[in-house]
């Protein structure tokens, strides 16, 4: 069974959907992602759909599900790179994905996740920042 790879980047998880997904693949991704959040204690999930040429109600539901589930698991989700034609079609289809945070591109998506983390960390002591993931940190971090 093929799977969509999930990359770990510090306390965030990255998924880039590059293939025309059949429904089972979407379900597997949903399972994989939630168990990975649980296992790694990730605090953010970024899903890049810029290569997706179509989002139908099933994939739309999967996106909404992942967003809702990860929120319960204490991780923020951001979906990035939806193509204009896909957005127009989704609206016409009747799906507006309320409650799912969207961003224009990976850069802006990452900025959103970091801002969410910073806001959460702002409540607690500063030295606890990033300490829970054992070190890997952000992509921009110097070794």
């Amino acid at each position: 069974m093929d799977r969509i790879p999930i990359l770990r980047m510090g306390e965030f998880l990255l998924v880039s959907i590059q293939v025309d997904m059949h429904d089972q693949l979407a379900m597997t991704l949903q399972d994989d992602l939630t168990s990975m959040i649980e296992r790694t204690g990730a605090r953010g999930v970024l899903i890049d759909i810029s290569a997706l040429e179509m989002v139908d109600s099933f994939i739309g539901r999967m996106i909404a599900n992942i967003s809702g589930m990860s929120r319960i698991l204490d991780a923020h989700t951001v979906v990035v790179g939806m193509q204009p034609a896909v957005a127009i079609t989704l609206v016409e289809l009747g799906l507006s994905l309320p409650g799912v945070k969207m961003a224009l591109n990976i850069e802006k998506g990452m900025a959103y996740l970091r801002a969410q983390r910073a806001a959460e960390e702002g409540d607690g002591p500063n030295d606890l920042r990033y300490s829970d993931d054992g070190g890997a940190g952000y992509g921009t971090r110097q070794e």
Partner: protein
Amino acid sequence: MWHALIMRVHNAIQLKNPSPSFVGEVVSTNNQGTDMPKNKSRIAEILKAHQDDLAAEWVKNLQATGTGKDSRISESQLREQTKEFLVLLSEAAAVGGDVHSQAWNATVDFLEDVSRSRVQQGFTSEETARFIFSFKQPLFARLRAELAKDHEAFAEETWAATELLDKMGLITIAAFQKTREDLINRQQQEMLELSTPVVKMWDGILALPMIGTLDSARTQIVMESLLQRIVDTGAELAIIDITGVPTVDTLVAQHLLKTVTAIRLMGADCIISGVRPQIAQTIVHLGVDLQGVTTKANLADALSLALKKLGFAVTRTKAAN
């Protein structure tokens, strides 16, 4: 002649080859394999023999009815056109056949060219059609002179000439119309592009000033070009300004809502500005739910909100004089 010829050929075909597929269907034909009337190309002959006279008469007629009186077309141009047409016409008529056949291509092309240039010179359809129709009188006069003794031939040729010139006239008008339609289509397309410019207001802020009535087709084009620009520029905020939109009906309001939703799905934000009081009233009366959509009274307010959202602050460093 043409009509007579067609009828005769038709009869001949029916006699020789009573195929049902021909019955009542023959609109074009050629002269091969049929016994042609001996006055086959009388018109062609006459045209050829009296080209110069006919052209002179024709130009006189044209001028009498007003063509060539002003600066739109000069007399020499008119002379050239009539002359060239007569040459082409006599050549084509000598070969004969239907005006849609190959022999007539050059003539038809020439007429279409004339029509197109008439459109560009600003002639009306009536003035354009007159080009061909004012040739009737000189041609008929010439036919009468040539065939004065043979009444039957005269009647036949007159009818044929009428048929022929009417067809030429129709070609002229069709070409005129087509040129005008092309022009209108092109202008519509240009208007569509002109009326939907997506402008960059600031780093990360795009604005779309909409002018004119919004229909489904236009909204779709506007929506697509705005979304594409958002992808291209990475702008996080789009302002749709509807100051120039006279009315908003349910459909337009729904289109606006869809645009806002699509922009959100892409990860950008949208502000609608320029909502005039009447439009606000209409929207509420129509029961369209614009809740969750940020609206501002004018473009300036929208821009200031957009700047604020992106973390910019505008300050005045010097008092105005």
